[in-house]
């Protein structure tokens, strides 16, 4: 059962990595604007040059 010590160490380490990743994302402002990117992704890359309505 001593393997448990190792496994728990691994799981805590993994969780810590995620926590650090979250902090990094916060610092980069990834959570500042949660609305705009969702709209931005829907835009076409190129301009189809017909705009007849």
């Amino acid at each position, binding site marked *: *059962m001593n393997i448990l010590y190792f496994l728990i160490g691994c799981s*805590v380490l993994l969780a810590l990595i995620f926590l650090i990743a979250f902090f990094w994302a916060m610092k980069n402002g990834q959570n500042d*604007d949660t609305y705009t990117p969702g*709209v931005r992704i829907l*835009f076409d890359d190129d301009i189809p040059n017909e*705009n007849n*309505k």
Partner: protein
Amino acid sequence: MNNLSPQAEIKASTQCYHCGNDCPDEQYHFDEKEFCCIGCQSVYQILSENQLCNYYAYNNTPGKTQSDKLSHYDYLDEPKIAGALVDYTDDTISIITFYIPAIHCSSCLWLLEHLYKINSSIVSSRIDFLKKQVSITFKHHEFSLRELVIMLSSIGYEPVISLQDVVKEQNKASDRDLIKKIAVAGFCFGNVMLLSFPEYFGLASFEHQFKSFFGWLNLVFAIPVVFYSGRDYFISAWKNLRNKVLNLDFPLALGIAIMFIRSVFEIVSGTGAGFVDTLCGLVFFLLIGRWVQQRTYHHLSFERDYRSYFPVAVTLLTEDTEKPIPMDELKVGDRILIRNNEVIPADTILMKGDAVIDFSFVTGESSPVQKVLGEVVYAGGRQINEAIELEVIKPVSQSYLTSLWNNEAFEGKRKKMDTFSDTVSRYFSVVLLLIAFGAAAIWWIIGENIKAWESFTAVLIIACPCALALSSPFTLSAVLSIFDRNKFYLKNTAVVEQMARINTLVFDKTGTITAPEGFKISFEGDLNFEEKCLISSLARNSGHPLSREMVKWIKINEYFPVNSYKEIPGKGIEGIVKNKLVRIGSASFLNINSVKTDTGTVYIQIDDHYAGYFSFRQRWRPGLKELFGKLSKSLGMHLLSGDQDTEREFLLPAFPWEDQMHFKQSPQNKLDYIKSLQQNNKMVMMLGDGLNDAGALKQSDLGIAVTDNINNFSPGCDAILDGAGFEKLPRFIKQAKDAVKVIHISFGISLTYNVIGLFFAVQGLLSPLFAAILMPLSTVTIISFTSIATHLFARKNKLT
């Protein structure tokens, strides 16, 4: 998003391709498209030249009407001013963030992020849609700040340039800090729960070696939770204790501290598992409650004051040059140039030019005032005629508006109203301490010292008012989002409770209870078709609002040429149409006896023959009478107006409390009136339209700015109400009262949980497992109860 209804598309043939307004008769054609004005057309031209017509593909008629604005941006070339505006600059590039109220749909987003196609000196641009901000990186050597702003204006996105409130970095920092604390607390909570399960479910004998290992690990996780995430509770409790106030943070901090101490004690001594699981969960939920409470609307600025309406710079006239200087460098004796549509930034004397000043900002009076040379012109007015020259007699900080804003009456702290939870927590803490010490004392007398310690700590742990602390924020923020959907924006959650206590309402007239569409017109006299044409032909030359209303009322699209047209501001207009002299204006202008003393009367004279008069009456918001009727059942009603009292008789049917209706009120009068109401122990809610009521709005217990354009106008107030939601006012008040009811009930529920827990705690029977179940259970009950109850009440009040 702003998709137009299918109806709008059917009428598309007469609609402006850019902004969707109805096109007038002389349509502007370009590229087989129709435009309502040259402004819209030129925006389209710019976009099509740069292959940006996708703008029109994402939404129908995404533009905003382009009224001709003649802003001058010369001051942006002044390095000092530009330096204060940009966020970052180095040798080649600059970054600047603009607040652009016109941002409203995905087309705006697309266009503003493709600015580099219009000018290659723009490196990139990013929009923050909800805040209506765009930050632009550009090469400032090739493309100056001024050119950038002019380009934005030319495509219909004129930024609001102000040194005051545009970008609010501070808020962001504290918000991020809280989220970090939540993340840490959540991380630790999850791990601790996992490590506590074996203890809860029981360990087999051969697994006992893990017990102390898990315990120590839990302790390690508890340290950041207590000393980092929970830090604010200790600080706040300590501060309040020093001010001799017992708020809810005190029992919370006490609970956290006791839980930590007992856990350390048990784990170190190996006598138990401690309460680390409950501790981490508690802090985590509490922080989430705090985060919910802090939610604000980034796109609305509640703190904006008159200074943000003032220009950033003024044009200073020296011997032979014009030079823009920053506002705060303005000195007494400086000569400044104010162009058409610019705001006068300081108290001044008119030196040159024809001044016609619109003081609606300051006094609420809608008709412009004419000033003669040598007269004093107060700050805050807007020049609506040619450019004028003024000499400064009082710099900005001492001017009229500033003195109003700095008035001690509303600089001094507003009497802070106790929220319900403040009141409860005072008693709660005292009762809690009594029970804890009482239980400990009884066990100690019996002689069971360990039991005494156990029961004392258990009481403080189990009674930790987590659910209590969450009921207010969750209820109030649910109300906030319901109000938000109904276009009623509150500054923060405390405003809801304030609203529930209001017993007196004070209304401002212009802009608040009047409809934005303007006037109700009636004509006394006879006009034949030809005469109507004559009047309409003449009046359409004038930009005066009453003239435009007249043209709209006459509704004839036949116009004749007008010769020797003359407009005397504030008096009237005249001109020769079809060889007839037509004069429209006030009685004194036409040299006739006035029928009424109304300011809203316009007389018509054709070839010296008196033809009758138009009377203009302000139009009220729809359902005003019913609204007043409903509100007056439970609330005292008052009406204040800066205008003349000609409207009194028209208002009386809807507003029958004649002695509570006051006219000719200056901003200071309004403020004093509210103060006197408050001295009679009234809780006053003031509804005003903006800056000229700003003093009164701040003085009142709850100031609401009623506006038809929330993005442009948000003075210092507690709430902003969109004009369209005005008739829902009684329902908003009802909902606020219901919310307080919900809070009361949920306090009852969480107290019940506390009593159940206390029953075990005083006997010293509290096990970690029991605490770990009770605490989240009560929290979840409260959160779901408050949000469900609030939404049920909202449905009942028809606020969905």
